[in-house]
């Protein structure tokens, strides 16, 4: 597994895309800090970007990497290596390299700005952590889609649709349902609905950490009650963990039955 991971990782580290992604975050970090000139505000802006962008990048890279490394996969499949090892190795190699771009790209500008000495270092770490989680989740989901679709265009299309659903459409449906069922108590429902979408879950997690939940009214208070506690934090991170584990289980199952 380590060998496969290493090769996937090196392979990606040599591609221009990893650097482009890294440079993008680097610039983003510097520009945000320069424009806001305030760590708190920069982090809020950053959250909005991370919550949408890391899933998108994870999805696109996940699908692209699967199709692009087909030859590599086929070469490995004829070697004495377990199938699950090949796919999990590739998955981890890709996710780690993307997460590294995120951590370094944002870490460097914020370090320069003196995040270490500020009170919101924990918020920043949560933000980066959530970004890395989202990367792992969406790479896993994208790998699932690519494994099930031989046709590249189809696979790409489904993957983008999946991202669009999670990042945009889900929220829309969520809002509509809140409006339609306005007369009923909805705090439990919204709590559940949030937990079942990793993007929303991440967003709420950061918002509550940033202590601006008062803006969200009564539901905000319910959320705060749940997510604000240590229990809530552990529960939501376990939920994010499950969002990685289930797609991975399907990757292993699907890969073991596929013909190459």
């Amino acid at each position, binding site marked *: 597994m380590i*060998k*496969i991971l290493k*090769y996937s990782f090196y*392979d990606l580290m*040599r*591609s221009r895309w990893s650097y482009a992604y890294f440079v993008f975050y680097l610039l983003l970090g510097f520009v945000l800090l320069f424009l806001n000139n305030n760590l708190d505000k920069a982090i809020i802006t950053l959250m909005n970007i991370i919550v949408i962008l890391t899933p998108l990048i994870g999805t696109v890279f996940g699908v692209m990497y699967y199709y692009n*490394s*087909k*030859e*590599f996969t*086929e*070469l*490995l*499949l*004829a*070697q*004495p*290596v*377990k*199938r699950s090892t090949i796919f999990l190795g590739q998955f981890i190699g890709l996710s780690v390299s993307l997460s590294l771009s995120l951590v370094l790209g944002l870490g460097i500008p914020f370090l320069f700005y003196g995040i270490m000495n500020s009170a919101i270092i924990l918020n920043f770490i949560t933000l980066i952590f959530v970004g890395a989680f989202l990367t792992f989740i969406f790479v896993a989901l994208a790998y699932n889609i690519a494994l099930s679709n031989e046709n590249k265009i189809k696979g790409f299309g489904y993957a983008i649709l999946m991202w669009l659903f999670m990042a945009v459409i889900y929220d829309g449906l969520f809002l509509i349902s809140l409006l339609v069922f306005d007369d009923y108590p909805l705090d439990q429902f919204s709590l559940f609905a949030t937990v079942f979408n990793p993007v929303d879950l991440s967003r709420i997690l950061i918002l509550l950490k940033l202590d601006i939940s008062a803006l969200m009214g009564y539901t905000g208070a319910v959320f705060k009650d749940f997510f604000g506690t240590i229990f809530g934090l552990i529960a939501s991170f376990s939920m994010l963990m499950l969002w990685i584990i289930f797609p991975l289980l399907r990757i292993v199952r699907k890969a*073991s*039955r*596929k*013909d*190459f």
Partner: protein
Amino acid sequence: MIQIKDLHKTFGKVPVLKELNLTIKDSGIFAILGPNGSGKTTLIKSILGMVVPDKGEILIDGKSTKGQWEHRQKINYLPQIANFPSNLSVIEVIEMIKNIRNSKTRDGDLVELFKLQPFLNKKLANLSGGTRQKVNIILTFMFDDPILILDEPTTGLDPLSLIHLKSLIKEAKEKGKTILITSHIMQFVEEISDEIVFLLDGKIYFKGSVKLLKETYNEQDLEHAIAALLNVQYD
């Protein structure tokens, strides 16, 4: 010894292998022949475990290969289409496979034999088809494992390389290895193979020596014997 019992494989709705039974004893060169789409590559990939059969069993040295990967340690496989990660150089691919298989190799001698030194640091995407096939051959022959599976090994090779390939195959046979070959070049098959397995529509229609096949159909050369065999089947 490779034993294949009652092997079935369907792609979509198209049956490719049907109740295939075959035993390949140790040592010797076995040619798997058949027209396009007769299931040769599917059979080979099933032995390797790259294709998952719908039904049936494949035993290598008495052990079932189903869901296993350890048996691939005994097999050196030359794929039909030399697909490599395009952004790696020749030497990197060789090193990678060496690293993954973790066994003794003689890649240096083979690189010299096929005169590949000038290409070692070139990216695989930039190589010609024939050169890529030479890399493919090196990756297969640099190990010393008991089973060799060669899917269309002659594709794109120049005459000199073909001679080298034949001598490599003969050398492997002398070491007592089991060698499975598919090819459409009958002259090549006739020259090197000990036994022929003829596949048609996913079934075995003939198994035996080249001599037996020629005698059965009363033909002078293998090409015509195969043609006669096909004619009989299609009539």
